[in-house]
């Protein structure tokens, strides 16, 4: 026989009386000695900490009690399906709390370093070609509106560069996929980007910066590496996934912490970005070998780009990309 004290509320109303409740060996709830109902027919709220429990009787009256332990013992004995009672069992002990903390950190770390990149890769490769084309044209027209200007190179020179891209595409086994867009880089200067659908944007300044055409070819090989691995789409998927993950961790905590989580998000995204650059470098080197062009051309071009941008103090170049000496060393490796 379990006994506990509580308040019995009228159905849907505030009128209440203090009652002594009891549950006998057969699982029948009695209030003030009067049998009411079988325990298994009652609606019992889940335990959270030590807040009062709400026990709803079949006729709509409510029995409220602060005696959580008594209710737990009765539930254990007479309830077949016990809802989320397991949650309270985890929350009750410090041991579980410490284990949960360690697991949270471990799972969070794994999700950020492995899970997000893996999921992003899956999403990027699942997208249909049409989606890549739409997103790419969108990006190109935005870039054209905001920073890029029409190329000032002669048509003959443009055709030469386009021919270089065809050679790289052929080496990559898919010559029809790549399309060259030459532009005046404006304030972004010497640069090259790959869009997911195979469009490769190269600025006039980059072409002029190159000492020989093999260096332009090396940059194109690097960009083709980005296209093949769908890095552009992966980046969109990564930042979405990371945003979701960080909202999960910090969302309920506070507005201020959500803002503070922007910093780790930035650090993680630039670390993902550096991994992409390493991948694209490695693929670029492979393609250059196939074309019989020494990979040192890529290394030389990276150094020239760093001189150019480094002189202007562009740190973003360094943070989203691995340090140039490291890349040069990796390229030089046999």
């Amino acid at each position, binding site marked *: 026989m379990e006994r506990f004290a509580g308040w019995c509320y009228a159905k*849907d109303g505030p009128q209440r009386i203090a009652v002594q409740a009891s549950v006998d060996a057969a699982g029948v709830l009695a209030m003030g000695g009067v049998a009411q109902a079988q325990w298994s027919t009652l609606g019992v709220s889940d335990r*959270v900490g*030590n807040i009062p429990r709400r026990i709803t009787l079949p006729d709509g009256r409510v029995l409220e009690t602060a005696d959580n332990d008594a209710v737990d013992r009765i539930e254990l004995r007479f309830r077949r399906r016990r809802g989320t009672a397991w949650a309270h069992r985890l*929350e009750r*002990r410090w041991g579980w709390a410490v284990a*949960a903390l360690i697991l949270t950190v471990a*799972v969070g770390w794994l999700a950020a370093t492995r899970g997000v990149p893996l999921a992003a890769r899956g999403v990027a490769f699942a997208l249909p070609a049409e989606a890549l084309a739409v997103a790419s044209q*969108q990006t190109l027209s935005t870039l054209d509106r905001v920073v890029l200007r029409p190329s000032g190179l002669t048509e003959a020179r443009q055709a030469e560069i386009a021919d270089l891209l065809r050679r790289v595409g052929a080496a990559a086994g898919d010559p029809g996929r790549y399309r060259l867009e030459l532009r005046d880089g404006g304030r972004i200067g010497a640069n090259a980007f790959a869009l997911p659908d195979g469009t490769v944007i190269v600025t006039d300044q980059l072409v002029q910066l190159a000492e020989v055409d093999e260096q332009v070819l090396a940059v194109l090989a690097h960009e083709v590496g980005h296209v093949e691995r769908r890095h552009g789409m992966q980046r969109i998927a990564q930042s979405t996934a990371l945003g979701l993950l960080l909202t999960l*961790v910090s969302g*309920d905590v506070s507005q201020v912490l959500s803002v503070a989580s922007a910093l780790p998000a930035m650090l993680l995204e630039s670390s993902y970005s550096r991994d992409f650059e390493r991948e694209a470098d490695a693929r670029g080197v492979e393609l250059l070998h196939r074309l019989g062009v020494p990979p040192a051309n890529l290394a030389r071009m990276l150094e020239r780009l760093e001189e150019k941008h480094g002189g202007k103090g562009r740190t973003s170049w360094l943070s989203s990309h691995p340090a140039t000496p490291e890349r040069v060393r990796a390229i030089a490796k046999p």
Partner: protein
Amino acid sequence: MGATLNELVSVPQVSGPRAAVLEFRGQGGEYFRIWIVNLLLKIVTLGIYSAWAKVRTKRYFYGSTLLEGAAFEYHATPIQILKGRLIAAALIAVNSLAGHFLPWLAVALTIAYLLLAPWVVNMSLRFNARMSSYRNVRFDFQGTYWRAFLVLFVLPVASALTLWILAPVWHRAVARYLAQGYRFGGRPFAADPPLGRLYVIYLQAFGLLMLFAAILLGTMFLDVPHPGEPQGDGASWRFLVFMVLPIVLLVPFQLLLLAFIRAKGRNLVFAGLTLDGRHRFASGLSPWGYAWIVIGNLAATLLTLGLFAPFAQIRSARYTAERTAVYPASDLSEFLAGLPADPNAFGSEFSDLVGLEIGI
């Protein structure tokens, strides 16, 4: 019950029965365990558990807040919250994808969302109110689209355009919108904070702002290094103290200003708040005490990489509860006993309500 509100803080004396002060029984350690288990389960279930976590958290805070020995209750089910979150996530995902692929659609959707926002805010306040009860009596919220529209868009824009001269008008409109929308047991709340006194609060806050600006500018101009002065370690120290320090202080100062306005504004609104035209309320937040809670919580949470967050939530809930009181016109139990039973109160209609959440 324990001390009356007047023994804790100074609030205006209201004639009639003594104050019933809110009591908060939540414990930092107890809530930390709930919080960390929630966090882990949210991550391993890719966010699905967040609905369950939300319900457990809300139930903990409601159930730990007591008035005259009876706790508040939160009744939403995780499935309701989950439905709301899935709808919200789908809308956000559609908008974000449209941003990458079809910008015109993203613009159209954003406009549609903005137009829907007042309705969503009303729905969300209504859901939350209806899922809350005290002594088996439910709260409710009824707001009109245009009142919400005014509070969400018109007045904030007007305040910003007038360099916050209209901010107190906005503040009053929010207080009226909320107070006049809430119901308890079908009885309406009402509030009409005097505009003049709101302006006084905002002027005081403006004074604080000027004071800080003066300190900040003063440190910048007072210590310009003189030519010929030895440069070196001393110069970098000065840079740290006079250039970096004001920037570091900017966040706590912003929080101080917000806490000041919030505490004083809440006290003023509660002083004029009524339920059923008879029962009165009081809030006695000290602007400095409240600011200390807010700033201390932020600092401790950042220093512990977020681990203090659950303790911070408990700390501010306790501070606010213990400085909030009800002055029933007659005995509280008598008032409650006089409320009619609400046949719809716990009916099936609620199980169809979707837990759309939006902060206001």
